[in-house]
């Protein structure tokens, strides 16, 4: 809770700027009638791994390009390492960008690509050599300096791009969808690698992604964006467990939802009547903000749900709904059950495939879903956006 709270605090709340390597406040960027960034404010602390998470078109890249200096914000102020960035050209900013599509120089060999930045900075030949090597070593590409970019696999190219940026020891490293082009296996490895590297060099990482799981596993804090607005900033746990609104709830994970009316609220725990065909009573923990009677949506995370077949007895849980298994998606270590509660209400529940003994549910079978009182989050049923 605390994190989730502190996370909502905006730069205005005067955090001492020597702790921050980026302070963006009220950034606005318009393209014609599209507003790519709509009064976006956030801070990134020194040495932290910060992710901008949002669907395609949310404005993530735009923000990143403003940080890098390729776009100038129409309004708002941006401080990097405490300095105002108004009309500082890209080549004079203490940041480096790893491009979504790597943008490796096709006419330069791997080594030359990596050394480019240093040469531009007129670093001594000898030092260049040393730093390039260490950078390549860090991304496990030592010995491939002489290759041409097109001779590398996607993952290798990605690492070259990384090295090319890291070798400059930037105060802030910006990454635009660094892993989007990789296949799953590589992706998972690179996620860990990136994190490790970041801890090694200890510089600030700002990473753009639309891959929720990726953002969560890598980041210290995440900023969720949508339609140019910053919806929530917080630790992965915070945004997953305490989403600020329905959009975030849906975007950062599976959200099983049920609409209903809050009846009574007694010190934090309320009673809600669902709108299903045969209404059922659900015990929820609901914030004071909720006036009653009010139409609300309860959003539940799959891991809080207990699945059991009709006949066998339900474990001791407060709330139970019934449904019919619509689809069974076998996923190796876990199986996902798509369950239909009513015409319109569809839930998704993951079950760990540990107990090989227990026979799995089959498609078409009717099941019970239960959860403990107070689980899940309540949102007003007409979300702000």
């Amino acid at each position, binding site marked *: 809770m605390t994190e989730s709270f502190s996370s909502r605090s905006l730069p205005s709340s005067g955090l001492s700027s020597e702790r921050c390597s980026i302070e963006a406040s009220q950034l606005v960027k318009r393209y014609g009638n599209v507003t790519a960034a709509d009064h976006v404010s956030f801070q990134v602390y020194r040495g932290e791994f910060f992710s901008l998470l949002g669907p395609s078109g949310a404005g993530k890249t735009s923000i990143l390009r403003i940080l890098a200096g390729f776009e100038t914000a129409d309004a708002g102020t941006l401080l990097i390492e405490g300095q105002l960035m108004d009309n500082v050209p890209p080549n004079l900013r203490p940041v*480096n960008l790893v491009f979504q599509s790597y*943008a490796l120089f096709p006419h330069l060999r791997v080594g030359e690509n990596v050394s480019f930045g240093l040469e531009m*900075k007129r670093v001594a030949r000898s030092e260049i050599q040393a730093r390039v090597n260490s950078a390549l070593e860090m991304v496990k590409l030592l010995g491939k300096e002489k290759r041409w970019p097109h001779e590398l696999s996607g993952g290798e190219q990605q690492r070259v791009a990384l090295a090319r940026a890291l070798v400059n020891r930037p105060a802030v490293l910006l990454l635009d969808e660094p892993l989007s082009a990789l296949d799953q296996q590589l992706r998972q490895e690179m996620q860990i690698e990136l994190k490790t590297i970041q801890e090694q060099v200890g510089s600030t990482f700002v990473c753009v992604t639309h891959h929720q799981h990726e953002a969560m596993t890598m980041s210290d804090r995440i900023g969720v964006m949508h339609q140019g607005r910053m919806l929530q900033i917080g630790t992965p746990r915070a945004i997953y467990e305490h989403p600020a609104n329905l959009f975030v709830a849906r975007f950062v994970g599976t959200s099983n939802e049920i609409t209903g009316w809050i009846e009574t609220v007694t010190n934090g725990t309320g009673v809600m009547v669902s709108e299903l065909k045969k209404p059922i009573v659900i015990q929820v923990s609901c914030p004071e903000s909720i006036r009653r009677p009010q139409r609300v949506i309860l959003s539940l995370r799959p891991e809080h749900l207990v699945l059991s077949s009709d006949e066998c007895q339900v474990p001791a849980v407060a709330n139970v709904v019934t449904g019919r298994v619509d689809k069974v998606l076998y996923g190796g270590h876990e199986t996902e059950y798509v369950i239909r509660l009513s015409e319109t209400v569809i839930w998704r529940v993951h079950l760990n495939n540990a107990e090989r003994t227990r026979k799995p549910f089959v498609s078409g079978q009717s099941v019970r879903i239960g959860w403990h009182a107070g689980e899940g989050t309540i949102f007003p049923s007409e979300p702000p956006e």
Partner: protein
Amino acid sequence: MLFVVPLFIVLAVSFATRGTYGGIIWDFTLANYLDLIHPLYGRILGQSLLFATMTTMLCLLVGFPFAYYIARAPRRQQSVWLMLVLIPFWTNFLVRTYAWMLILRTEGLVNTLLVNWGMIDQPVQLLYSSSAVLLGLVYGYLPFMILPLYVACERLDPALIEAARDLYASRVAVFWRVILPLAKPGVIAGSILVFIPTVGAFITPDLLGGARTMMIGNLIQHEYLVVRDWPLGSALSFVLISVVTILLTIYATGGRHLRLDEVTR
């Protein structure tokens, strides 16, 4: 077929001898080539190559910014720009050259302006100089440079330029280290398309250069038409072809691209 046959005909002719009144007598001889072993022709060839090289350079200089600009312009505009480049060349070459003569001559546009602006108090001799020839050649072959350059620049991924900027490259550095190398194919193609015809050019040198010197083009022209010595002319042409081909091969391979299509890619 139609492409190679002419070449062989000429090759054959270059080993024949001249009839009394021109024409060809088919008896094999190396005389024509032997005649060419004379410093005179060497100088002519050298001079022509020099001019061609300078022209190519200038075309590059003028053409690159232009090509780059239109390549970066909005899609719709690009075609218009290209048309604008081509239209002047739908008028007759001779007439265009005459127009240049009008512009350059002693009471011509340039001199008048310069005098009026007081940059010079005395009209200067612009026409009938090698610079005039250069001007004419550059003007005449600019499009052949611009088009390939445009094609090359248009393919150039802006992200690369941004990447370079992000890696502390100044604008100049970006140009030299990124844009130029990436546009190299276009540069080479353009150079070839400009260099070849300029080596053989002969009208521009005559009109704008006052025919005070001779280019290989003039010479070939002269041999074929005035002296009616086709064998000698063919021999000359052949020497020219081989020299040009060799030079270009060296140049192109220098850029790691040999095939023309590679080059315009």
